[in-house]
């Protein structure tokens, strides 16, 4: 599955990234590299710093120290026009979707085209419909975000993130809260984007199954430190107890069998 070669050029380079919220140190010196054309999945328990790390990769948060390079540019030193240039090359599907509530789905998806290109309206609409088709939302372009379900909002956000065919795509929990079929199809989509367009993709996720499906490599965070970075097989066969603990816990959460859960509760009740 791991198709990216070790000598592919670097898309993202993080060096000794330390960050604070107030007085609390959240990330304690992160080093990681994402190569062009690979799918990097960031995993970790709740509160381990995944979203925080992602926000630094996007330049939305100011680090205490360390460096973040995105497509060869140091994010911490970019000015307004630098950000504008980088903005054309990346796409982000936020956890909440972050669709603009005053615009229709179609206008949302088209917004990056309107802002960054001089295409005529018709071309933009064709491109918008194509991307909506990809996320299985064809025909929904005239609805307002408030009229969509949670899963549809996420898919529309995904369409907006890829409408410019970005060099690097970021997705925060793309499949959380989606039904298995749609979630599987989003995974397929992520794989297709990488295979067909050579897109570099960074995905934050809780879902172990999805992570193992799509990842070339996995970065595992634990309380603001990098626990391990490696291929799916590396991570799966790691003999680090912390890694195994996290994997098992994820599995537990995923395949929680209600009968077994009830039985355990009842059992615990008897023992008490």
């Amino acid at each position, binding site marked *: 599955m791991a198709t990216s070669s070790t000598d592919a050029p670097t898309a993202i380079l993080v060096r000794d990234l330390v960050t604070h919220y107030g007085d609390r140190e959240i990330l304690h010196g992160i080093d990681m590299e994402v190569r062009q054309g690979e799918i990097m999945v960031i995993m970790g328990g709740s509160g381990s710093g995944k979203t925080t790390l992602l*926000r630094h990769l*996007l*330049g*939305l948060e100011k680090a205490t120290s360390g460096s973040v390079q995105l497509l060869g540019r140091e994010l911490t030193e970019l000015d*307004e*026009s630098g*950000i*504008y*240039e*980088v*903005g*054309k090359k*990346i796409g*982000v599907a*936020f*956890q*909440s*979707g*972050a*669709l*603009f*509530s005053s615009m229709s789905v179609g206008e949302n998806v088209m*917004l*990056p085209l309107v*802002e*960054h290109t001089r295409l005529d309206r018709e071309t933009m609409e064709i491109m918008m419909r194509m991307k909506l088709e990809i996320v299985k939302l064809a025909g929904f372009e005239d609805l307002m975000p408030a009229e969509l379900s949670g899963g549809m909002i996420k898919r529309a956000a995904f369409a907006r993130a890829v409408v410019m065919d970005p060099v690097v795509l970021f997705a925060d929990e793309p499949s959380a809260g989606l039904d298995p079929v749609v979630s599987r199809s989003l995974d397929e989509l992520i794989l297709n984007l990488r295979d067909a367009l050579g897109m570099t993709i960074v995905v934050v996720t809780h879902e172990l199954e999805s992570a193992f499906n799509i990842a070339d490599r996995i970065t595992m965070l634990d309380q603001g430190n990098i626990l391990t970075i490696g291929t799916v097989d590396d991570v799966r066969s790691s003999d680090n107890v912390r890694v195994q603990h996290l994997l098992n816990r994820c599995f537990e959460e995923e395949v929680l069998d209600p009968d077994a859960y009830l039985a355990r509760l009842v059992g615990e009740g008897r023992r008490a």
Partner: protein
Amino acid sequence: MAPPETSGSAPLRFVEAVGRSTLRAVEQVGFGATLVGDSAYWLIMGRRRGQVVRPQPVFAEMMEIGIRAIPIVTMLAVTIGIMLAIQGIYQLSRFGAETQVVVGVAFGMTREFAPLITGILIAGRSGSALAARLGTMTINQEIDALEVMGVNPTRFLVVPSLVAMLIMLPALVVWADIVSLLGAGLYISAELGMNMSTYVDQTLELLSAGDLLHGLEKSLIFAVLITTIGIADGASVEGGAEGVGRVTTNAVVHGITAIVLTDMIFAFATTRS
């Protein structure tokens, strides 16, 4: 419950609290000033930087801030005009100078009440809406989304509102001037048996361009205050939906306070002789 680690007594803590909120207020004012500067920058330089301020959102905002407010502005302005006339006639009749009411109403409305009432109304209506929108957008990561798309949020969100406010608030004040003076005129002509056209002639003769300008200048300042306070309060949102409720209320309270204080200072600085 153990008290927080602040040192000592209640008065000290009170001073500390005052200090902290003063600091926050200064911070907010700084933010507002930066916002105005940035807006001017994007308005002028946007095209060169590839980030144009588009006319459609400005029109949409003008519709929302201005046109939709016409009914309520009309109602309040007419009511206040008539009220001034009632009180004026009552007071002046004691000196047998009822006809002088025209003077009081004309100056009072154009210089003071029309801009003040319109400003307060729009602070309550549109300042709060701005804060609610910005607060919701912040919480929903929409501002983040704009930034990573390389779309400057000031240019995209603030400038259209500011421009629309700067156009519509003075326009509404002119409208309030007209309808309030007409409302007062109807009452005065009925009460004092004065001919309506005599009233209009007298009013026009009394009022100078300076009186109208006095009101309009104030409304421009109010427009800047309402927009920046709405945006600054909205952007300071913390937490979820309750956070949005809080910043919305803040925007109304701060907006009206700023308008009334500025009004007083402006009147003091320009009217005293």
